[in-house]
């Protein structure tokens, strides 16, 4: 048991840090650190830099472009990205469809799709949820019916993040007829430029417009785009659930947010002294900091076990629900910190290039929208209730 970094790990950390320092565009870094809205170009610009360096998909097998790093190195890498103010890498290609193609795809699929994921030339989005199938994916209704060498796809997918940016969507669709609910589901890749696809933006109550409804009307999809066999979709979805998700806790990003909280609370005044010196607020910050430490060391415990050869398991559900609870607690404290200046709503101030002077302190504008927006964290990718169901079933065997 050794909580310090080895010389090798320190050198690795420095290398990553130096890369970020030398390559991360300043405008992107500022946006990330100030909580402003990133657009596609920001994310792609950064991802392409990672891609050129060969660091786009550290967890992939080396033969497909992975880095061959250990779990600890991957953890350190993720941490440096977050602490360095880098945008999150969009997960849909790298963490979702990529690993699926590597595990279940044909050689042709691999040759066709993986390089363009690595180079960020294709933007992917996820077609799982439907209006009537949220947590209960087995209830999905979107159908892909055989029509010669193609499928004809009809149905509606929803909560599709960044569908409006996407070149491709990977979907769970129903291919079998009258089979049991979970059978007859297949995993299909669909070109977003295909005829019959309509994207309807869904405005969220924080003012955001990242998510969409995607409807399919007689969309023709070549059967070549099926991953695995017909009916294997459920297996693939479960594979992804068990796939390495130790980054899911978001520890490093939460640490970064805690720094921001401290900076803001040092500038806000309360009763004539900085808010951060107010015993009550200071204790609340400390309490969250300790919760974050506990999560961080739990995360490290799991990473260490993986390093020692243990397969990742359902404990990632713990990382997910605790991680999002803590993230949400931080957004709450940030909101509290600015008092009345949580109130003004200045959507333009969240985008880059707003030239007006801020209303109240210049850091205030994104805080309430961010608090509102981040309520999604305990809902998407399996609600926190679902995560607890998983632990009860898989770990506690209840």
């Amino acid at each position, binding site marked *: 048991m050794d909580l310090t970094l080895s010389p090798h790990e320190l050198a690795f950390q420095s290398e990553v840090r130096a890369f970020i320092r030398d390559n991360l565009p300043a405008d992107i870094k500022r946006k990330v650190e100030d909580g402003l809205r990133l657009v596609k170009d920001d994310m792609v610009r950064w991802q392409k830099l990672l891609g050129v360096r060969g660091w786009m998909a550290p967890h992939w097998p080396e033969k497909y472009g992975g880095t061959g790093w250990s779990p600890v190195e991957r953890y350190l890498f993720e941490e440096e990205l977050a602490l360095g103010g880098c945008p999150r890498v969009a997960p849909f290609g790298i963490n979702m469809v990529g690993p699926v193609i590597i595990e279940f795809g044909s050689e042709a699929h691999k040759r066709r799709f993986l390089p363009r994921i690595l180079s960020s030339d294709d933007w992917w989005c996820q077609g799982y*949820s439907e209006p*009537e199938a*949220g*947590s*209960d994916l*087995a*209830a999905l209704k979107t159908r892909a019916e055989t029509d010669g060498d193609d499928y004809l796809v009809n149905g509606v997918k*929803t*909560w599709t993040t960044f569908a409006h940016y996407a070149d491709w969507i990977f979907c769970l669709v129903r291919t079998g007829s009258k089979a049991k609910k979970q059978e007859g589901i297949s995993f299909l890749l669909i070109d977003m430029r295909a005829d019959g696809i309509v994207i309807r933006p*869904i*405005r*969220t*109550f*924080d*003012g955001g417009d990242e*998510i969409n409804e995607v409807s399919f009307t007689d969309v023709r999809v070549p059967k070549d785009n099926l991953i695995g066999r017909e009916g294997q979709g459920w297996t693939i979805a479960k594979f992804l659930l068990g796939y390495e998700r130790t980054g899911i806790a978001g520890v490093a990003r939460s640490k970064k947010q805690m720094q921001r909280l401290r900076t803001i609370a040092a500038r*806000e*005044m*309360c*009763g*004539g002294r900085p808010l951060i010196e107010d015993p*009550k*607020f200071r204790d*609340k910050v400390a309490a969250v900091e300790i919760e974050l430490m506990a999560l961080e060391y739990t995360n490290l415990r799991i990473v260490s076990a993986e390093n020692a050869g243990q397969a990742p398991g359902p404990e990632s559900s713990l990382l997910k629900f605790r991680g999002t609870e803590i993230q*949400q607690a931080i957004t*709450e404290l940030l*909101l*509290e910190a600015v*008092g*009345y*200046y*949580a*109130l*003004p*709503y*200045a959507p333009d101030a969240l985008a880059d290039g707003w030239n007006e002077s801020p*209303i*109240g302190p210049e850091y205030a504008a994104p805080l*309430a*929208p961010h*608090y*509102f927006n981040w*309520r*999604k964290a*305990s*809902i*998407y990718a399996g*609600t*926190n*209730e679902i995560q*607890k169901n998983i632990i009860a079933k898989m770990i506690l065997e209840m």
Partner: protein
Amino acid sequence: MDFTLNDEQRLLQESAERYLAKEYPFAVRRRLLATDLGFNRETWKAFADLGWLGIGIPEEFGGIGGSGVETAVLMEAFGAVLVGEPYLATCVLGVGVVRLASSPVQKKVLLPKVATGDLLLAFAFAEPGSRYELSRVATRARKNGSGFVLDGRKAVVFDAAAADTFIVAARTAGGVADSDGITLFLVEADAKGLTRRDYPTVDGRRASEVTLKGVAVDADAIVGAVDSGLPVIEWVIDHAIAAVTAEAVGIMSALNRQTLEYLKTRRQFGRPLANFQVLQHRMVDMFAACELSKSMAYMAAVRAGDRDADSRAKAVSAAKVQIGKAGRFVGQQAVQLHGGMGMTDELPVGHYFKRLTMIDTLFGDVDFHLRRFAGG
């Protein structure tokens, strides 16, 4: 000891609920969000015709001389449909100051017009950097003949863009956080030297930053006694807190109703969400939070009228703490239980949640009022 509404109050409640259910569906609110002022002057006139604008105004000045309970009844009904009209700014804050501290002449000029819907008020008490401390007033009022000249900045003045007359807290003596030395002034919206920066708030209301640069007022603009404004501000803010706690109760009730309805209709894993025990108990906790809040809101509505300022402060702060905690819990859980639907702008749930969140911030958050209650 009687903790029930009397017949008139029940009548007011029923008529308000009926009227608003009909005239104020969610579509109306959504439309208002896109307007400049965030509310509808015709609706305001209708409120006047219903007698609602005069509830806090004595009969001799054209009102009906109701108590805090009537205000709470109305605010609860307003919360349930997210009324955007400037009732808090004009009828609670503005009328409150005038009723408590103004001269008979001022009352006669202002109050009847408020009751008929022809005058809107705004109360500029907070400043950038004052946070929730009511005594922290840096805006200065220098003596100028028999009048004063005002210089300073006021923060987050609710519904200032629509206001005809401002009530401004300014320092006539003492240091920046002294209790003594604050004076209240009436300032016309079109006064020379008064400028506004208007903006929407995250909960769909309107507010402004107000700058005063050499704004000259006459002696008759003074409200109450010179240097003695703080107790008036505290009294009024305590009444406003009682009002927003009732509004919060209306919001929580509506959220609970809609969430329960959603759980009963939405099916997952082959059965209604309402069948899942975890969601049942969550809903029970939300129900309990709302019921406990309702008791505290009406307690505050009654006890805001206490003669003794300490007793009033304790009661009101306790209610604000309860509502702040309960509102946060109910709001967050209502979104959570709606799943993805809870995140959309289309359903009311997010709108209620935002307003509840901002009510926690209004006039001091949970920590501020917990400390005030504890006497620290």
